[in-house]
């Protein structure tokens, strides 16, 4: 009985300790809803320690697709959004969930595909390449998750004059997941896909995939940052959130973005004030 009681007591104490430490809130912190591309490329791991050391504000990043990130902010569950879908961002502003948008940086999309390039799309014209993909009906992986990358893909099909609804078939795999899973799927299938360069560069399970189309102006991928309107949600930490935005677009922040490299390649290009 004694052994049992002592054991119980020990477990109880452990639970109480865990409970106490698990629910404590940290004093100055903000929640940033952002995209899987920024998180999975490792950019935040590079930026946040610099900002936190300078400001004393802890930044918690929730990585979602652009559409989901904006929805989380619409429900008041984030203080700042950092996303890359200009049309969706304008809509967010128009709805009054934010009052201002800042340009932060850009990177670009690249068309990835198997080295053998069975559809023969290699080159510098992404619209022509998409046209060939639709004709050849080679395996193509789509994010299908309302992310910025997904919007860019849909925009490109449209520009290539492809009616996706009509030509969609077995070759078009809509997986409804983030950039990483999409790359994993494409790598396994030997399929084509549109990816942001940052995630591609930090992606390790490439298999036979390589970049086939890059450098087209239409692949330009701008990121914007917005503070969630405190008038909509009083819980928004406006002061700390604005401090984070101000730092991102400051000379220090921009330099920090430019200095993030993987294998010597710069992933994101500062664009504040341009």
């Amino acid at each position, binding site marked *: 009985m004694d052994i049992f009681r002592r054991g119980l007591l020990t*477990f109880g104490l452990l639970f109480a300790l865990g409970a106490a*430490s698990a629910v404590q*809130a940290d004093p100055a912190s903000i*929640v940033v809803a952002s995209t899987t591309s920024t998180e999975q490329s490792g950019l935040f791991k590079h930026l946040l320690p610099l900002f936190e050391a300078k400001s004393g504000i802890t930044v*918690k990043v929730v990585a979602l697709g652009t559409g989901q990130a904006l929805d989380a902010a619409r429900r008041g569950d984030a203080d700042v959004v950092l996303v890359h879908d200009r049309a969706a961002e304008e809509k967010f502003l128009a709805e009054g969930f934010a009052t201002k948008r800042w340009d932060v940086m850009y990177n670009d999309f690249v068309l990835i595909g198997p080295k053998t390039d069975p559809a023969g799309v290699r080159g510098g014209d992404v619209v022509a390449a998409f046209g060939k993909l639709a004709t050849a009906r080679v395996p193509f992986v789509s994010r299908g998750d309302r992310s910025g990358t997904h919007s860019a893909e849909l925009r490109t099909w449209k520009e290539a004059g492809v009616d996706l609804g009509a030509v969609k078939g077995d070759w078009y795999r809509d997986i409804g997941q983030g950039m990483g899973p999409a790359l994993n799927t494409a790598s396994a299938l030997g399929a084509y896909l549109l990816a942001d360069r940052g995630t591609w560069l930090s992606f390790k*399970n490439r298999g036979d995939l390589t970049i086939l189309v890059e450098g087209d102006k239409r692949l330009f991928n701008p990121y914007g940052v917005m503070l969630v309107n405190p008038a909509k949600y009083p*819980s928004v930490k406006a002061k700390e959130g604005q401090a984070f935005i101000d730092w991102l677009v400051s000379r220090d922040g921009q330099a920090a973005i430019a200095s993030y490299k993987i294998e010597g390649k710069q992933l994101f290009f500062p664009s504040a004030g341009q």
Partner: protein
Amino acid sequence: MFQTFQETISRLATLDRDVLAIAWLSLRVSLTAVGLGLCIGIPVGAFLAVADFPGRPVLVGLLNAFMGLPPVIVGLVLYLVLSRSGPLGSLGLLFTPGAMVAAQVVLATPLVAALTRQVVADSEAHLGEQLRSLGLSAPRRALALIHDTRFSLVTTALAAFGRAISEIGAVLVVGGNIDGHTRTMTTAISLETQKGDLSLALALGLVLIVLVILVNAVAALLRSHAARAYG
């Protein structure tokens, strides 16, 4: 495949403090959730085993079904409840370890209650008549049977812990997988898989398995130690 395993082993050697912090968070969240789940689930399950009232079979059936609640659904519902625009938004729990504890409590409690009910009902078949003939109230009988089945209930606690620490659907949605705050072993494994770093994901998976084995070993030790005295 073979190469991935080789890399995994070498990655294990270099796992750093971040991984320890993630493992510790997973352990804290799941142990807390299981602790709370035991506090609620054991009395409820035991009472269902000893008390006789109309509607009990329905309640028991419901409980058994809830053992299989999909974590993603629990996460989603809790997300909407804890969201700033939800009914409990003012607590500010979303994207905190507290929210993950809450989600795992919801997952663990029906499991604990259903398994406890089964264990206590088996014991009640053997001891119930005697306890009733002593004139003990239903809550007192439930307590006596909980005490009587305490060694079997350790297994119940372990099952709940296994469900809690290995689930990802709920903690991902309500925790947000925030680096350094709500990243648990399972969300970290998922993230590394998505980044295509399969050897790191596998190394983290091995750490998780070792963690689960350790907790089970401690419980088994405690149990056999106590059972030797009072089996």
